[in-house]
């Protein structure tokens, strides 16, 4: 019995996926369609049930049902528009669809208009990337240079819309979409896929306008009309910037959102939760349950494996992540998505030969994928050729301007080249596009630190720290920054926090020594001594691994004890100083000599 009911639900999922894949390929949301189809193929195969005649019947029924209420004339129009769309003649497609009243056709019209706009702006941006220095120009909608004064800016904005015919841009499209939605106030479910598509488009436009909260509302609305739209879930995810927002959203989805099928059992929600966990981490128990369920249902779904690998990567478990990626490459060799992360892992693990192989392999598959370019760039970076690396990153960005990791990594390369300003520009771009990218924030902080602009770098470290509050490095950087600005109390707080999070004894010596120093600065000698002692203790426990800090700590303790006239202890500390600068060693010897004299 249990087996049966499970099969029924599996069949339901399968048919939903099948339908969505068909719908979206029909309405030109190729990524959603692809995702659904991949999921479908990746499902566990149960021969008896899949091949049952009911499926065929369902297909036929769907075909009839999903005529999307098109009249014959509209259907003809659709055929024309669809083929124009496939030929990438977006303007023409929109032109022929103007005045269409069917929601789906309306979507296609506005969507192709949007794509046309996107294509044109992308062309404009390519020019910038190719001709101008990327660090000097900003890209967002219309291209105007930063160092122009305001009046020029406004003029630029004007001319950029000057292309002759009434040029559509996101705001005009949005306006038309709004008026359409206002005219046709369908009941939620009557709207069906048409409504879902239109709401989805509205969400995209709003998101482009940086109106994240409204965008989320409409994505959710779209999903409640039609939940099997994976790109919509992804867009929804991209609207989130903080983990507390993620929590709220998940809570909302669990409690309020009405989906077509019941929310709890909806497989899409599970996928979404998985993706949220990947981005923000969260309750690991729930995650495990969901993952287990999804894995049993979709054993061969590459996306799932990739998510798993990414989660491991985010938890800095590179070994696991690498092995997972290896599996992915084996089972689905021509899937380039997420492989740039794989190359990051290889880079960090310094497996350069493997990285070279990956670069070669992906270039063979498709040279003009942003992922490929990132991989090649990583390869060159590993070979210490930052210029070439930057070139490839730039190419990746030309192919996809929203590739955040490429911006961040390019920033790293610029740091390598000691070009802080360019690096800052790159990091900026990265955080503009994806405010969740803690590496970019951290990079910004570091770059400003190099420029001695500690006020700025403090703010960026705070940002990074907000995103990764469980990362020792963040707190440490924050603390260093506070101490440079002169806010010692906060610096101490942060160092202590970093110490709590530290899992690595060897790195503790530095923290402890810094803490001690700070306590000395605020004249809290007792605490200072405590930390100095701890610092020395760490060295002892780590068996021979000596660092400069310990030498300094020993010296300090020796000096301190001489002042307190505890010559014996001072002597012990002083003879412990075995390396460090020659001056330090000299001083230690002097103290030791003095102490010996005093003791005798």
């Amino acid at each position, binding site marked *: 019995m249990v087996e049966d009911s499970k099969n029924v639900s599996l069949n339901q999922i399968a048919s939903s996926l099948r339908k969505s894949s068909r719908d979206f390929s029909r309405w030109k949301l190729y990524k959603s369609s692809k995702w659904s189809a991949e999921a479908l193929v990746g499902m*566990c195969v149960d021969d008896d049930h899949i091949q049952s005649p009911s499926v065929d019947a369902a297909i036929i029924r769907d075909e009839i049902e999903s005529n999307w209420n098109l009249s014959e004339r509209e259907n003809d129009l659709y055929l024309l528009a669809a083929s124009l769309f496939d030929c990438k003649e977006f303007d023409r497609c929109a032109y022929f669809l103007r005045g269409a009243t069917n929601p789906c056709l309306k979507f296609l019209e506005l969507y192709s208009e949007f794509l046309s706009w996107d294509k044109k702006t992308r062309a404009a941006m390519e020019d910038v990337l190719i001709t101008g220095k990327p660090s000097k120009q900003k890209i967002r909608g219309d291209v105007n240079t*930063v*160092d122009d*004064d*305001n009046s020029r800016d406004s*003029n630029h*904005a*004007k*001319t950029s*819309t*000057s292309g*002759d015919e009434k040029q559509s841009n996101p*705001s005009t499209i949005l*306006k038309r979409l709004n008026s359409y939605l206002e005219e046709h106030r369908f009941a939620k479910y009557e709207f069906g896929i048409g409504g879902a598509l239109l709401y989805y488009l509205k969400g995209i436009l709003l998101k482009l306008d*940086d*109106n994240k909260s409204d965008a989320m509302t409409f994505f959710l609305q779209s999903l409640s009309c039609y939940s099997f739209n994976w790109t919509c879930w992804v867009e929804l995810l991209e609207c989130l910037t903080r*983990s507390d927002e993620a*929590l709220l959203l998940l809570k909302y989805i669990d409690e309020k959102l009405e989906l077509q099928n019941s929310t709890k059992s909806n497989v899409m929600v599970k996928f979404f939760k998985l993706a949220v966990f990947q981005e923000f*981490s969260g*309750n*690991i*128990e729930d995650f*495990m349950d969901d*993952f*287990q369920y999804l*894995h049993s249902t979709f*054993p061969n779904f590459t996306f799932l494996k990739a998510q*798993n690998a990414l989660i*491991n990567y985010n*938890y*800095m*478990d590179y*070994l*696991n992540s690498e092995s997972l990626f290896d599996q992915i490459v084996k089972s689905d060799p021509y899937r380039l998505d997420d492989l740039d992360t794989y190359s*990051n892992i290889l*880079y*960090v*693990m*310094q497996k350069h030969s493997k990285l070279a192989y990956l670069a070669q392999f992906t270039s063979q598959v498709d040279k003009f994928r942003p992922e490929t370019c990132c991989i090649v760039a990583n390869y060159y970076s590993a070979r210490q050729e930052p210029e070439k690396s930057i070139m490839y990153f730039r190419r990746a960005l030309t192919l996809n301007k929203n590739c955040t990791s490429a911006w961040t990594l390019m920033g790293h390369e610029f740091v390598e080249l000691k070009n802080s300003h360019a690096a800052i520009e790159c990091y*900026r771009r990265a955080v503009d596009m994806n405010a969740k990218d803690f*590496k970019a924030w*951290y990079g910004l902080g*570091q770059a400003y630190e190099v420029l001695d602009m500690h*006020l*700025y770098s*403090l*703010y960026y470290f*705070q940002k990074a*720290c*907000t*995103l990764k*509050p*469980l990362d020792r490095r963040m707190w440490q950087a924050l603390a260093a920054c506070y101490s440079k600005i002169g*806010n010692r109390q*906060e610096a101490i*707080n*942060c160092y202590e926090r970093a110490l709590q999070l530290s*899992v*690595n004894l060897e*790195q503790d010596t530095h923290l402890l020594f810094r803490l001690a120093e700070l306590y000395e600065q605020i004249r809290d000698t007792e605490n200072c001594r405590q930390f100095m002692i701890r610092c020395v203790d760490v060295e002892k426990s780590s068996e021979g691994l000596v660092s400069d800090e310990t030498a300094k700590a020993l010296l300090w303790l020796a000096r301190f004890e001489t002042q307190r006239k505890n010559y014996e202890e001072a002597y012990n500390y002083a003879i412990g100083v075995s390396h460090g600068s020659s001056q330090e060693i000299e001083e230690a010897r002097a103290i030791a000599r003095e102490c010996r004299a005093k003791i005798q």
Partner: protein
Amino acid sequence: MSSTGTPTQHNSTLAISPFVSGRNGRYNASQAGRAEGDRERDRDPNTQQLAAGGNGEDFRSQEWNPAGLEHNHPYGSLANSPLVQKTNPNIAANSLATPHHHVTANTNHGGLIGSISKNGLFGSAMPSTLRKVSLQREYRDPLNTKTRETHIESGIHEPMSTTTTLTTTTTATTSTAEFDISELSSIEKLRLWRHDALMQHLYKTAEFVANKIYTLTGDPNDAFWLAQVYFSDGSYVRAIDLLSRDMLDSTSIMCRYLKARCLVKLQKYDEALDIVGECNPFSSASDEEAKKETDGGIKLESSLCYLRGIIYSAQNNFAKAKESFKEAVLVDVKNFEAFEELTSKNLLTPREEWDLLESLTLDFSILDDNQDMVKNLYIIRLSKYLNEDKTCESRKQLIEEHNLASNVDILVSDVETLYTKCKFSECLNFCETILEKDKFNAEVLPTYIACFYELGMRNKLFLLSHELAENFPKNPITWFSVATYYMVVNKIGEARKYFSKSSILDPNFAPSWLGFAHTYSMEGEQDQAVSAYSTAARFFPGIHLPNLFLGMQYMSMNTLSLAEEYFTLAYDICPQDPLLLNEMGVMFFKRNELQKSKRYLKKALEAIIELDSTSRTFVSIQINLAHAYRKMGDYERAIKCFKFVLEVSGKDSDIYCSLGFLYLKTKQLQKAIDHLHTALSLSSTNHVAQELLLHALELNVSITLDSDHPLVVNAQIHEAHANIYSSRKRAPLIFDSSALNKKMKTSVSSQTNGECEEMEIE
């Protein structure tokens, strides 16, 4: 010359056709004994003759009946004149169905067009019968001649063929004996020749003949006609010479008018004014009788007034010009040129325009049954800032009752309405529909070009400018268009050059003047801008824009008291313009009179409320209002306004900066810093934002990381989740997924990995 020989000042030129004036001594044989008497009766016989002529031929009588029936109609004599034909196609069709036409109907396409093309093509090669006919028509259709003359002067040529068509409207046969050409005297025949030559713009011929006639007869009327020929030919000096001889100009008012026109053409305004007289000599003598007298033509007095206005405006004496034009319209509403001059050259303020039209003295009653239509047509030309309902009503009437929906005037009115409402893209669409029919309609083009500017559509503007430059190199609009193009592509210097070229071609072309001034203001050359604007303000007292711009200039120079003065001037002219209200709001804001500022800005918002909310004006008003709220300390409202602006308009550095400031004020440090960052990323040279950011960051340092700090809050959230994780941290967990025996380890990051990550980050 006796008073009977000269038309009185109250009359139109209808009476002085060369043949009509022949009653002085040389009567036409057929007219003998009939032409005596007053002018009314002078025309009556004509129509009677026509009726009689028609009766002579049975099968034609039906066609002539309309003319006969209109016997006592004020337009009786005009029944077949082009004027009537144009306004009423039915009559035209009837009266044009001439015998000649019937004869040739099988070869023609029939109807009006056929006859036109026939005559147009074969003009001089027509059979002699046609020539005879033309005699008769000349004779009884003096109005046609005269109206054409005035048209020639104003540069709008009546199509020649229309006139000649009319000549065919009477019988082609010689049945009406008194019109037989053979019965005319030799002089009459020469006159006929002269006239036909003039009609067909064969000026050399006309001059040749007219000269002979004048020498033969010495008649002042023939002198006048010779002068007329000279005028048409553009030999103004010769015309003046001729008219000055023999005291012609002092005896005939018509001659004087012509001479004045010649002088105006030669730009000798002072002399022209001497001839026309500095003020209307007849204004006091507006006797009742003269008023009643109408012959359907335009009163010469009105034309004189109009001419006086032209002279004054050429002399930059706009107050007097305005008075003269007004007078011209008041004397005779049919003088459209004067009316047009008043409205299109912005001599009147919107209020004055409406007052003029609504004043009782403006008498549309002489237009009889066309009264309503013409009045409505005039109304829709008035300023769109006032009385929108009335304009709408007139428009509706014209469309519903007179079927003028597709007429260009109606469309032009629509265009202007849309433009004053700043609905540029719709306005553009309307302009394009008009221009489809009439590609270079001078009334629409300036608005069309302005729309291009507003929408930044430089490519179409480029094409249009080139077309105009090819076709109308001497038209101010052409160079206005070129200059606007340069403005759009931001070449201010070039733009200025062409604006000035345009305004040299026509000093009364307001858009060019304003554009010229704008170029200075855009380059920040305040003094030149101010002087250019004030010249414009002097030239165009009817528009508030120069004053508004002057105020804006002074405001940018921080001379607020002067600015206020100019704004008040503009406000007096047009209190409805949202732009003006906005500027006034800004001015009061600058003077720290925040309440007043708020009031004006709110007014501006009301004035613009029906516009779509994304228009630039709307956005800037919102921004200003937000600033006013900010200064008044109403931070919440200010933030709301700014947020709204951000939603509808694009990203703007200053708005983000202001929002950052407001968040700082409301102690939302994180948001403040974020917004200031965005401001700086949009424009890195924003010094205010830089300073504010620095301030905010300093505050950020001093804020303690207590439990309210977002950083700590976030950390706690993460920790709450990670507790489970960290409890397992020391003992890596391995779990089996049911389907595959794949292991997923959530293990601790090992030492080496941590290091590597750090490397990557640095």
